[in-house]
């Protein structure tokens, strides 16, 4: 060591280098310590990110998925009746993938079920998998039926195999829909007489936008005039708002980030679920929704042909802006763009782009321009939002401390308190960051990453700060009599990944609550096996057993539940 060489000098001379060396040693130490700390921090950081709620904006939440799931899970009796309505079948046909459509069209007019083996000849061997997948999907929706056979699986398809055909109701209805035959009023009765009160497309668009925004508005908690009870109830039911004090929930915030089409459908599916409680016929409700989807935008339809249930629905759908009726008594109603796009795959935002009528809608989250971002976030946590939409401002105010409002913009700041408030409502940091990113101003979007790293990191840190403890429901096992018993139990629980914590020295194991039944059963089994092998082995228990199922009469129950 250097200092020893200098030692012969004065005490002073010695001590100085020594101090230096010590400092060097210390500084040599610190980097590694710092690195370790950093590594630690990194892992915990990753852990936190990994455990962050699995809410990615609109991941997989497509309109198609929503509806198809719903239909696939309907009881058979309902499904048969639903498929008797041409509008429904046409809507489902429109939702199908190109391959699905191809299959349906090919077998629509086939006189006999087509053997799967023959179907496979339609495509190359590469496409076979795709074909089977498409068939399975159609089968799940009960669009195709395989008379007396399990779902089409590659294994069951060799030889002549079972035949594939459209389910009878679906075939008939789709046929009716395509040819316009049958006497169903499934596609509504267009009013022939011109309306005295002229209703233009622009008017309808404005109406729909206003109404739908009012709903979303209500969701973010800004008072917006009177609201229908039905809407309030729907919002509560869907879990988008907390029932107790009617504030937005995490799910509700997620909802705001989604496409309008998905929003409308999510709402309507909720309505369907409620229709049972409201004593409405599910089939009619669903049928009417699909019927609305096949109506022509800008045309008026007669109310007279509707059933009572449908008239009731009309009342419920009006506050959502899905249909327009001038007066409650008027004999005609107009579907808005929200209705007519129900069953088309074109999203509202893109569908309305070419239409100047909706262009003036309040922007951003409105019916039209979801693509146009308007938010600028600076590294100093300041937020400038170029918007005059009350809805967007209300959304922002959920997590931004708004400072000033101008004609076309609001200025605010992301503060610890504002973010904490949002977090306490259940909105996650990821959701906030996703919202800011997706609504970022084009100028800001030129940056990579879009948001300043300081801001997004800080928001995450604030969230982590709030979640200082990670609780997990569990059972704790202690007082194992023998080390072997303990180790065997640990091994068993570990095999199923149930162990949350263990300590061999004091023989404690904490098991995830999910695995409780299994582990408990194992312990019982092990103990009975053990007592049978070594009758004297079981220690005389100090406490009486409580949940004995069938222990030997003289033995204590091995697991004592506290």
């Amino acid at each position, binding site marked *: 060591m250097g200092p020893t060489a200098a030692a012969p000098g004065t005490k002073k001379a010695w001590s100085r280098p020594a101090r230096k060396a010590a400092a060097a040693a210390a500084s040599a130490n610190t980097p590694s310590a710092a690195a370790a700390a950093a590594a630690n921090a990194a892992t915990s950081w990753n852990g936190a990110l990994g455990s962050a709620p699995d809410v990615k904006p609109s991941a997989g939440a497509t309109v198609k998925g929503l509806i198809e799931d719903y239909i696939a899970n309907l009881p058979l009796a309902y499904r048969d009746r639903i498929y008797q309505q041409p509008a429904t079948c046409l809507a489902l046909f429109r939702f199908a993938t190109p391959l699905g459509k191809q299959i349906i069209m090919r077998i629509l007019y086939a006189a006999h079920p087509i053997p799967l083996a023959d179907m496979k000849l339609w495509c190359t061997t590469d496409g076979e998998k795709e074909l089977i997948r498409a068939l399975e999907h159609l089968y799940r929706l009960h669009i195709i039926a395989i008379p007396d056979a399990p779902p089409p699986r590659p294994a069951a398809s060799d030889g002549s195999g079972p035949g594939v055909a459209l389910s009878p109701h679906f075939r008939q209805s789709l046929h009716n829909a395509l040819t316009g035959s049958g006497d169903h009023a499934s596609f509504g009765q267009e009013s022939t007489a011109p309306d005295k009160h002229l209703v233009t497309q622009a008017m309808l668009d404005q109406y729909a936008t206003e109404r739908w925004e009012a709903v979303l508005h209500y969701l973010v908690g800004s008072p917006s005039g009177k609201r229908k009870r039905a809407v309030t109830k729907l919002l509560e039911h869907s879990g988008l708002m907390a029932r107790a004090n009617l504030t937005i929930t995490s799910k509700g915030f997620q909802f705001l980030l989604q496409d309008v089409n998905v929003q409308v459908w999510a709402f309507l599916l909720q309505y369907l679920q409620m229709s049972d409680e409201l004593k409405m016929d599910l089939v009619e409700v669903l049928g009417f929704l699909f019927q609305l989807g096949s109506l022509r935008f800008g045309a008026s339809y007669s109310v007279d042909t509707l059933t009572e249930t449908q008239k009731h629905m009309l009342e419920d759908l009006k506050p959502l802006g899905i249909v327009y009726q001038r007066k409650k008594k008027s004999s005609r109603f107009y579907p808005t763009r929200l209705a007519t796009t129900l069953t088309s795959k074109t999203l509202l935002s893109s569908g309305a782009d070419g239409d100047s009528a909706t262009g003036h809608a309040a922007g951003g989250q409105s019916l039209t321009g979801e693509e146009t971002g308007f938010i600028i976030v600076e590294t100093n946590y300041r937020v400038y939002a170029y918007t005059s939409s*009350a809805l967007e*401002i209300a959304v922002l105010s959920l997590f931004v*401390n*708004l*400072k*000033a*409002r101008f004609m076309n913009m*609001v200025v605010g*700041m992301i*503060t*610890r*308190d504002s973010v904490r408030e949002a977090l306490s409502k259940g909105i996650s940091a990821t959701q906030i960051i996703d919202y800011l990113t997706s609504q970022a101003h084009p100028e800001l979007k030129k940056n990579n990453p879009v948001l300043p790293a300081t801001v997004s990191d800080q928001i995450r840190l604030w969230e982590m*700060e*709030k979640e*200082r*403890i*990670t*609780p*997990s*429901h*569990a*059972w*704790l*096992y*202690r*007082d*194992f*009599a023998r080390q072997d*018993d303990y180790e065997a139990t640990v091994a068993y629980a570990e095999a199923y990944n149930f162990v*949350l*914590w263990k*300590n061999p020295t004091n023989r*404690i194991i*904490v098991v995830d*609550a999910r695995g*409780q039944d299994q582990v*408990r059963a194992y*312990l019982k089994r092990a*103990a009975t096996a053990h007592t049978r092998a070594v009758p004297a082995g*079981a*220690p005389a*228990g*100090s*406490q009486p057993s409580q949940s004995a199922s069938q222990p030997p009469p003289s033995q*204590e*129950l*091995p*697991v*004592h*539940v*506290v």
Partner: protein
Amino acid sequence: MVQAVRGVLLQMDAAIKQIILEINDQSPQPFILEDLDDEHVFVQEESVDLVRAKLDEILEKNTYKVDEDVTMAKVQQTVASPAA
């Protein structure tokens, strides 16, 4: 005889653990069932919300508040609710 205890396993860093021990000591009804190690403690199921709230309170007390928050609140009050 093996004992099974129902509860909640709390995982946290060592500093928070100390605060939780403190909360436990001050609580009229101790909720810690088993003190496992520096970063784990096993508590009664019902106590989790209470622990969370108390912890939040204590941490909040020990957080440095930027002045800007205060001034901003004032500004916000004067600017008042968004003009139509």
